[in-house]
């Protein structure tokens, strides 16, 4: 097997293993989904917004609920590897450790994206706004990808601490703020019918975030995980 094929195969093995564990245990995605739906319902009933205001806030609420749900998924993803020190098993495998980073990031992206696909029709119903746009799906993909890659990297940092469940959001949210702003602005623009040209600066920021966090993962993930 050629080195690149082997590298991609290793990433696939980690993603498929995470999906298999999730399918068997069902402890990640259902909890993420219920939590995200609860946030949506709570905001909907707590704020009692007028239809005009609702339309303006839908994008922001979507992203807050997605990021909170994704944080639960990130915690679940890392606790899965901490339990029984399964992560050591991955570190022992003959692969470049950045493949572990890519595998974990992509599986976290996959799970959060699944949650988003269920959330969108619910948002459409509650906020009386068609949110099933292809462009919005692209923005969600880019935003969630940047968020989960950063989260995967920071989860590796917090893994050695006793307070990792608390530490992860404390580290993650401030650093993910530019991604959150860009995702919300791009989503709001799409929902209000702005053209791609008008949104390109936000899309560029999302792409740059992805590039930056994945590059940081390739460079530092292995070093972070070694004691």
């Amino acid at each position, binding site marked *: *097997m050629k080195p690149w094929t*082997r590298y991609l*195969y*290793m990433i696939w*093995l980690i993603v498929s*293993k995470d999906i*298999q*564990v999730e399918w*068997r*245990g069902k402890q990640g995605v259902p909890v993420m989904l219920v939590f995200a739906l609860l946030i949506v319902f709570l905001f909907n009933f707590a704020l009692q917004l007028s239809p005009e205001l609702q339309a303006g806030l839908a994008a922001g609420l979507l992203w807050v609920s997605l990021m909170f749900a994704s944080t639960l998924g990130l915690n679940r993803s890392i606790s*899965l590897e901490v*339990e*029984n*020190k*399964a992560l*050591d*098993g*991955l*570190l*022992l*495998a*003959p*692969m*470049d*450790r950045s493949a572990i980073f890519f595998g974990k990031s992509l599986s976290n992206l996959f799970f959060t994206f699944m949650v988003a696909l269920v959330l969108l029709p619910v948002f459409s119903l509650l906020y009386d706004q068609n949110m099933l746009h292809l462009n919005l799906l692209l923005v969600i993909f880019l935003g969630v990808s940047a968020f989960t890659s950063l989260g995967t990297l920071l989860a590796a940092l917090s893994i050695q601490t006793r307070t990792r469940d608390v530490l992860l959001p404390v580290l993650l949210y401030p650093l993910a703020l530019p991604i959150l702003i860009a995702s919300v602005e791009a989503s709001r623009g799409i929902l209000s019918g702005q053209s791609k040209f008008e949104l390109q600066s936000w899309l560029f920021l999302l792409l740059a975030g992805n590039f930056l966090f994945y590059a940081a993962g390739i460079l530092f993930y292995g*070093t972070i995980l*070694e*004691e």
Partner: protein
Amino acid sequence: MTISCSSQITIQGLIKRYHFRPVLDQLSLTLDDSSFCLLIGANGAGKTTLLRILAGLARADEGEISIGANHNFSDHLLRLNLGYVGHEPMFYNDLTAVENLRHYAHLYLLTDAEEKINQTLHLTGLSQYQGQPLRTFSRGMQQRLSLARALIHNPSILLLDEPYTSLDPLAAKFLDNQLHGLQKPGRTILLAAHRPQRLLPIATHIAWLKAGKICQHLPIEQLAECPELNHYLQERV
């Protein structure tokens, strides 16, 4: 895919500090090809740290490690020749024994994965439990499955960290028999043990780790010539 034919391990001037306290302090040790070395030492002597560094799970602050003719210890393909059993089983609780082993077999790019899985499950006496999730396994069964994981790719270097911990006498006896069978030409075994007496008949060498250094390293036949080490072993019967 082989990196080096020889499984000789050479460690020179290894230093590892935790919170500025040296756990390994200028440690040097050479393990001959095909040797079975017992690594002994009191709690906190650094046995686990040494094994974790050799397994590539921890980073040494200073020093050099070479395996066979390969001096680039950080080469990840070197791990193809390495099997490690630590304190924890390194498995996923929601997956069955066979699914866990299949995952590792694929990570090691084994072409005949299913055959190797069946062989190692048979070797460790777990064939009848292969479809059970790991969470239903006892500590002894998990340890046996860990051994299966470490052996599935037929490594030339085997690092075993206190494999007898929390095993009942029956499971310990089973492991004794397993270790007898693991010795073969071309395979180097380093086993850290707190109470190593039961392994003295099958080991070829013994290394005593004390204050972060190897203070004695000798063939088992020469054990009688070292009263201090004998005394240490007697205390741990």
